[in-house]
């Protein structure tokens, strides 16, 4: 179901932690359905906090946030039924095998046992994990683990997928594998909000980018628009100019 209304929409998102001041100081976001939207910024800019709030893992202090047409404060269950989360914190079980992880999370996504087994089989195949399916995740390579993490977040074919720094710490080849998987998802209609510190990643994957720094939005636009707005040749220059000027 594709509608014109944004898949993710926030206004004036604010969040502060005691003793550490404002993590988010009024974030406005609008993400069109079926697109890959990048949240780009240095460490501590508020990227992860934004995603945690949108994924119902953290509470907002003030402002409004809607995901897949559901309010993240008043309808947590509705949001949770429509999202997938993968990345640095939403982990998989290290002791279990890849298949056991998928089947367990599928059951927790309220699938029947038979359906859970079938869906796990599909995802293992799709992410090239059939051979490693019955080995403990602890022995997986970084790339395999991220692919499993991604597979788990896709069990219920979410409308909106949050990827928090999905390629941090990966070697170049694994990074490209994850990028390919993310592109495929967007092609099939999933909306992806991706946080990253890598400019190249944002440039290659995202149709729109929101740059954040110190809890505020410093720029928003397509990669090309951001480059031309500062008269620079590449995103690196735009990024440095925008985050320093803030």
């Amino acid at each position, binding site marked *: 179901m594709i509608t014109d209304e944004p898949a993710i929409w926030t206004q004036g998102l604010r969040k502060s932690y005691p003793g550490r001041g404002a993590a988010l100081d009024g974030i406005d976001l609008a993400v069109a359905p079926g697109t890959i939207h990048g949240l780009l910024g240095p460490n501590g800019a508020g990227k992860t906090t934004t995603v945690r709030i949108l994924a119902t893992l953290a509470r907002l202090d003030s402002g409004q946030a809607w995901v897949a047409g559901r309010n993240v404060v008043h309808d947590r269950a509705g949001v949770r*039924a429509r999202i997938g989360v993968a990345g640095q914190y939403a982990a*998989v079980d290290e*002791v*279990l095998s890849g298949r056991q992880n998928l089947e*367990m999370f599928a059951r927790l996504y309220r699938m029947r046992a038979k359906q859970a087994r079938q869906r796990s089989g599909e995802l293992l195949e799709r992410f090239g994990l059939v051979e490693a399916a019955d080995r403990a995740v602890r022995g997986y390579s970084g790339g395999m683990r991220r692919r499993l993490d991604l597979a788990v977040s896709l069990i219920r074919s979410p409308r909106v997928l949050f990827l928090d720094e999905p390629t941090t710490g990966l070697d170049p080849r694994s990074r490209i594998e994850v990028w390919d998987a993310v592109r495929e998802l967007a092609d099939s209609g999933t909306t992806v909000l991706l946080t990253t510190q890598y400019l190249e990643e944002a440039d290659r994957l995202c149709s729109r980018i929101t740059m954040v720094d110190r809890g505020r939005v410093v720029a928003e636009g397509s990669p090309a628009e951001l480059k031309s707005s500062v008269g620079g040749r590449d995103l690196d220059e735009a990024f440095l100019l925008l985050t320093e000027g803030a």
Partner: protein
Amino acid sequence: MSTLTEVADTHGSRITWAAVDTWVVAKRHLLHLVRRPDELLGTLMIPVMAVAMFGFVFGEAFGVAMDVPGSEYREFLLPGLFALTMAFGIGNTTISVAEDVRGGVLDRMRSLPMSPVAVLAGRALADMILAVVELSILLALGTLFGWQAHLGLGGVIAALGLLILLRMAFSWVGILLGLLVSGPEAAMKYFALVFPLAMVADTIVPTDLMPGWLAIPAEWNPLSSTVIATRELFGNTAGPATTWVGEHALTMAVLWPVAIIAVCLPLAMARLRRLGR
């Protein structure tokens, strides 16, 4: 491609789903034990060693102090060790929950449309199933050393029920601690705190042989109520019950665990919600 089915959010369906989710999470912890059997062996080693050490190394001397033969001391000892094993389970529970907080598995579960209480209750259920395994092994071992239940199967089942209830209470203590500590390392560092809980109680030494100031907390230790109650139900040797708690051991063996769960479960749930801050 699977489609999203809307789950009717009635009160009844919520309870059913909480039960299903709890079982799925419990199965995860049981699979851990199958994949890492050394952990189960480690847990079992404590009571097995305790039977050997306290039963035979110190047993004869304790028997002399209690004015009974060593074999009768061992009859007194085993119900104490059953309950002590339930208490030592707190360590594993705390470490496992702390690992799940650190590793992000709890966050993943919190982002799912699953029952929030099942995220934690699954661990408690797994602990209770594990307790059944541990108690079976201990009963077999006890029988091997000449320990006996004298009052028939009904008493044995009631006693095991009380022990499993105690384990459930300690499981919620462990879950709460696991959510509060800064990490699994801290949980391991504080593990020694289980010793006073397990031993300043009517488990290994009868409270009337303790100094007066120590006998009072030992008698009020929830562990003591379960131990005294199970000694009654097994028909085993018991120390003299002179205090109010000692005389009402059966009632207290139910009340204590229920009270502990009533305090720890809501606190753990509140803490789980606050993990995201």
